[in-house]
């Protein structure tokens, strides 16, 4: 390490109280910022779970649909029309809805039901046990083995239940990439059985899942579907639409942004003030260094190094604390909705760097302004 930076390093870490104060401020800020944004990312990811799990490249829906949960039924002719469009390789219907399951002990449990196209079973889940073909057997359902599975009393294959006075039988246990947002178990069955068992309005197709001949056809399909008065979105566009809804049309996004901003301000206040005190305490010494022959840029590099070093250590500790909390939470809630993404980490790093930059700017200004002559004057 460069001698001047080593000097700065020793000045920083040997002042344990202030160094701890700085670290606490930045660690706390980084922890809160990453925690908040990762919780939000987790919620957004979960909110798109059906889109991710089904995996269709293009989704056709009513233009008023904002989330997977609030489906609006479409008439059958939409499916026929889409199937006849140029660029469409094939298209299938999908049912997505909610229902109440009556368990053998008489208790009721809300569930989410996905009805797959009877012919192709397009979007079927991966099986943990049982055969997917068994879905065609009478009254059969697949149960998704996620954190909500226990709410159905961990049903083995063969377990019976009632769904809207219809008999249901678990014929397979499935697994999916992402669990849902609303904390209810998920059942898969065929489209026909789903609309037969679950009370439905006049139009029953929740989504038309489209596989285009090529990805370049997506735009053409989009415009043809729009002429029908419906909306065709790619998987990514649909996920973005859902994210936008939760971010901008519910209080969730605003609250998370507020909490993140508050974390930033708290971190900035603690670190800024502590760093300022640290500089003030050493101001005369920096003046003496100037008198001895230190150049301004050397003093600036010392301060920037101190701020940068503290910021990076605090950032690392904040991330570590966050992952520990998420890991601990997952011991209790296995599918705890928190997702630390590179975007979250990048955002928090950016904000921590801003905290360090503002804190050091105050110090740099002070140090650049101190005249060595002041040191002689005492």
């Amino acid at each position, binding site marked *: 390490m460069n001698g001047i930076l080593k*000097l700065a390093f020793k000045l920083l870490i040997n002042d344990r109280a202030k160094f701890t104060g700085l670290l606490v401020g930045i660690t706390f800020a980084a922890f809160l910022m990453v925690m908040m944004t990762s919780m939000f990312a987790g919620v957004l990811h979960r909110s798109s779970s059906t889109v991710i799990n089904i995996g269709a490249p293009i989704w056709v829906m009513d233009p008023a649909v904002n989330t997977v949960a609030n489906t609006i039924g479409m008439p059958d002719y939409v499916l026929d029309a889409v199937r006849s469009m140029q660029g469409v390789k094939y298209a299938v219907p999908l049912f997505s809805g909610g229902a109440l399951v009556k368990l053998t002990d008489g208790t009721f449990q809300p569930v989410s039901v996905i009805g797959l196209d009877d012919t192709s079973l397009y979007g079927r889940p991966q099986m943990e046990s049982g055969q997917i073909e068994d879905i065609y057997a009478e009254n059969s359902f697949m149960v998704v083995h996620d954190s909500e599975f226990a709410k159905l009393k961990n049903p083995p294959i063969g377990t019976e239940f009632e769904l809207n006075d219809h008999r249901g039988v678990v014929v397979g246990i499935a697994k999916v990439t992402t669990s849902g947002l609303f904390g209810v178990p998920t059942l898969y069955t065929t489209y026909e059985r789903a609309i037969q068992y679950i009370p439905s309005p006049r139009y029953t197709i929740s989504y038309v899942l489209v596989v285009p001949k090529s990805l370049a056809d997506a735009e053409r399909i989009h415009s043809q579907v729009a002429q029908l008065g419906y909306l065709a979105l790619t998987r990514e566009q649909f996920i973005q639409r859902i994210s936008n809804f939760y971010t901008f049309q519910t209080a969730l996004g605003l609250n998370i942004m507020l909490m993140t901003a508050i974390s930033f301000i708290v971190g900035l206040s603690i670190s800024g003030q502590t760093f300022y005190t640290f500089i003030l305490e050493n101001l005369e010494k920096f003046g003496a260094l100037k*008198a*001895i022959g230190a150049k*301004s840029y*050397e003093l600036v590099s010392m301060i920037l190094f101190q701020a940068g070093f503290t910021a990076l250590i605090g950032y690392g500790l904040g991330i570590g604390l966050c992952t520990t909390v998420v890991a601990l939470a997952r011991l209790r809630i296995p599918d705890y909705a928190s997702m630390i993404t590179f975007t979250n980490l990048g955002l928090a790093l950016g904000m921590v760097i801003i905290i360090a930059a503002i804190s050091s700017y105050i110090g740099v200004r002070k140090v650049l302004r101190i005249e*060595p*002559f002041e040191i*002689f004057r005492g």
Partner: protein
Amino acid sequence: MSEIAIQAKGVSKWFGDGEARTLAVKQVDFEAFFGEIVYIVGPSGSGKTTLLSMLSGILKPNEGSVTMLGNDLWALSNDELADFRLKKIGFVFQDYHLFSRLTTAENVAIPLILQRKPWSEAINEARKYLDIVGLKSRADLPPVKLSGGEQQRVAIARAMISHPDILIMDEPTASLDGDTGRSVLSFVKTNVLDEKRCIIVVTHDVRINEFATRILTMEDGRLTAGEGKTI
């Protein structure tokens, strides 16, 4: 006569403008030679610290010139002047200005570290200088664990470590009792002063007059005739 170490011609310094202008130093001519300890004495506010700052390249005079070791100080750029101070001038400040979070050896090594000497080399050199000032055993302690006299000797070691030609001491005995003050100046005279070095001391302390080669008095911003002595 020895070679001139510092020469100031007609230096003046004022602070503020208009009616608020205060003339701190008025048209001062000054010379100091290698091998001598020059004291600048005078009452508070007489301008001696301002003169010292101008002589040492810290405060730019409004008028006049300062030549040190043949260099016109105020013709140098800021970075050149900083380099010049670092290599040619040693400073001993009134309040020592030692970093309490560094060890004594690290404090002494600072000028060498600023000169980009490797850390371990600088610390080893600092230990040698601490040995010279009689504080070898205190090398790894923080300065706050040392007495006032010891801290002053640490400051002297720091000023000496880069082998400066000029040593500037600002009120070196202000925080010391009489005996310690005398022992510090005695040490400086015996161990630091030589024919290739010039020492300028600003002081109020008449108890250390015996160590001066020449004593100049400042009053109202003017340098008046002083008492001259030979070593």
